[in-house]
């Protein structure tokens, strides 16, 4: 009895979680449709990982499980563990709002809230009960600069955000997320509706931000995954097929399905 406890205590004391985000045998299903099958994945702190896979492979489900946005959907079930800093996000005691502040998300379709550019970025901090006007102004400017949008909108912060261009909207969504000061940023095919130039801007931003945030970038596009460098995970039909550094995975794929996907035979 005692040694067991001792071991546990040692474990708790000494082992800091190796990964910022970790999935252990994580499965997720909607009703009787299984979206993720025993996924194992570890993401180190302040690194960039790209999850690629065809439509319906479970990429979005993974992201939305991680910030528990899938709670909105009825009749879901999950098993295994999904850890953030070593703590299961599905633990009973999880404060979901707090979790979502730590794990920010940028959606596939850029959706500015129906308010001004400034208010869009200030939205998160305000909900976090940041009340001082000065602090909010500062946060907004910092976030917009980090998202490389500041120069384009600094003179028209009061403009309705709907009037921004598609690429700007998506960078606004990123700025909005950054303003909450998250630790992890999830991006769900953020460039799927953007032109090549805007896409490039987002990709460059990702590489720049990777040093200070843990970034999980989802895409269906293998070229994009290659461009983003960092680590790549290939998700196919809810299974984690392969996981590794981009240059290795793209030059020497171990699995047949990965090879087919990156050479464009399937997907």
């Amino acid at each position: 009895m005692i040694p067991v406890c001792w071991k546990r205590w040692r474990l708790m004391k000494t082992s800091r979680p190796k990964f910022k985000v970790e999935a252990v045998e994580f499965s997720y299903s909607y009703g009787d449709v299984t979206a993720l099958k025993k996924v194992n994945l570890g993401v180190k702190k302040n690194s960039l990982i790209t999850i690629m896979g065809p439509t319906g492979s479970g990429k979005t489900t993974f992201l939305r499980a991680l910030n528990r946005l899938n709670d909105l959907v009825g009749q879901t079930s999950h098993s295994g563990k999904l850890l953030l800093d070593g703590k299961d996000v599905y633990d009973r005691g999880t404060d979901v709002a707090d979790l979502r502040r730590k794990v920010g998300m940028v959606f596939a379709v850029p959706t500015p809230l129906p308010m001004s550019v400034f208010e869009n970025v200030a939205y998160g901090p305000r909900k976090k009960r940041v009340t001082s006007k000065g602090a909010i102004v500062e946060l907004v400017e910092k976030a917009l600069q980090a998202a490389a949008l500041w120069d384009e909108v600094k003179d028209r912060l009061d403009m309705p955000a709907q009037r921004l261009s598609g690429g700007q909207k998506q960078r606004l969504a990123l700025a909005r997320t950054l303003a909450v000061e998250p630790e992890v940023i999830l991006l769900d095919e953020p460039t799927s509706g953007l032109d090549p130039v805007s896409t490039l801007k987002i990709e460059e931003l990702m590489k720049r931000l990777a040093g200070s945030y843990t970034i999980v970038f989802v895409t269906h596009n293998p070229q994009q995954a290659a461009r983003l460098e960092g680590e790549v995970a290939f998700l196919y039909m809810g299974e984690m097929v392969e996981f590794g550094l981009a240059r290795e995975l793209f030059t020497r794929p171990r699995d047949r399905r990965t090879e087919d996907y990156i050479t464009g035979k399937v997907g």
Partner: protein
Amino acid sequence: MSIKDKPGKQPGNRPGNEPRNLMKQQRQQAVRSANLRKQKTAVACLSMAALITGAVLVFVFGYIIVRGLPVINLRFLFTAPLRMGREGGIFPAITGTLVLTALSILIAAPLGIGAAVFLTEYTRETGFSRAIRVGTETLAGIPSIIFGLFGFAFFVIYLGMGWSVLAGSLTLACMMLPTIVRTAEEAIKSVPLAYREVSLALGASRWQTVTSVVLPQAASGIATGIVLATGRAIGETAAVIFTAGSSLRLPHSLMDPVRTLPVHFYILAREGISPENAYGTAAVLLIAVLLINFVAHYTVKKLFGGGGAAGE
């Protein structure tokens, strides 16, 4: 059109096919002219329907105004009635209508909006929420006299409120609830899901999402529902006679009985007290309803700009 009409299927320039082509052309011609006839009939019928609707409106409105307007002057609007309404004005009735309507909105709007928010944002489609929905829908179809009877039995007698502003307002609020809940629900549902997701993903709580994103977006739709319900309440007669009474005196507290404009009109006309003053009252009511609708519409447009969720 059938498969036969597809150009690829018909080897048109073979000589043997000419009579068949001719027949086909004739047939198409016939179909075309039949369609044209139908089109013309439809336009005629529809424009007739629109015309009749317009005419009814103009006729009713014109009739009341023409008969009522001569009676209306400042004295009529701002003095108390004399000799049971044969002479004098309708000031107490105007006050009664305003107070009763305002109070019933104050009671029904928060309740209705609250229920709608609960049904749309806080519950999934369960037996409970479905039961509430069916309940409100049934409530909307119940004749107002039944509401009056209920108000009389429950508020007036059982709760001992007597004929009073409060009992009347509560009864009217019950009548307004279904309309407000239904329209508010529709308005809230029309707010794109993406807004909620964005708000939640930024760490806002459910309640914060409702108050800062969903309700502002649904506001114009909700306001329209309240105006609609108000229109029904302001013209309500049966339920009001039962619950607010028909006192001709100015109310001094919530527990005083009042008479509203429609009740005043009803009594004047029914008892043959003064047809002129009855029409005057009706005209005032009609103009008030129009005014309220117009002002509400204008304010909603000004405040929320056109459609509810016109964001995307």
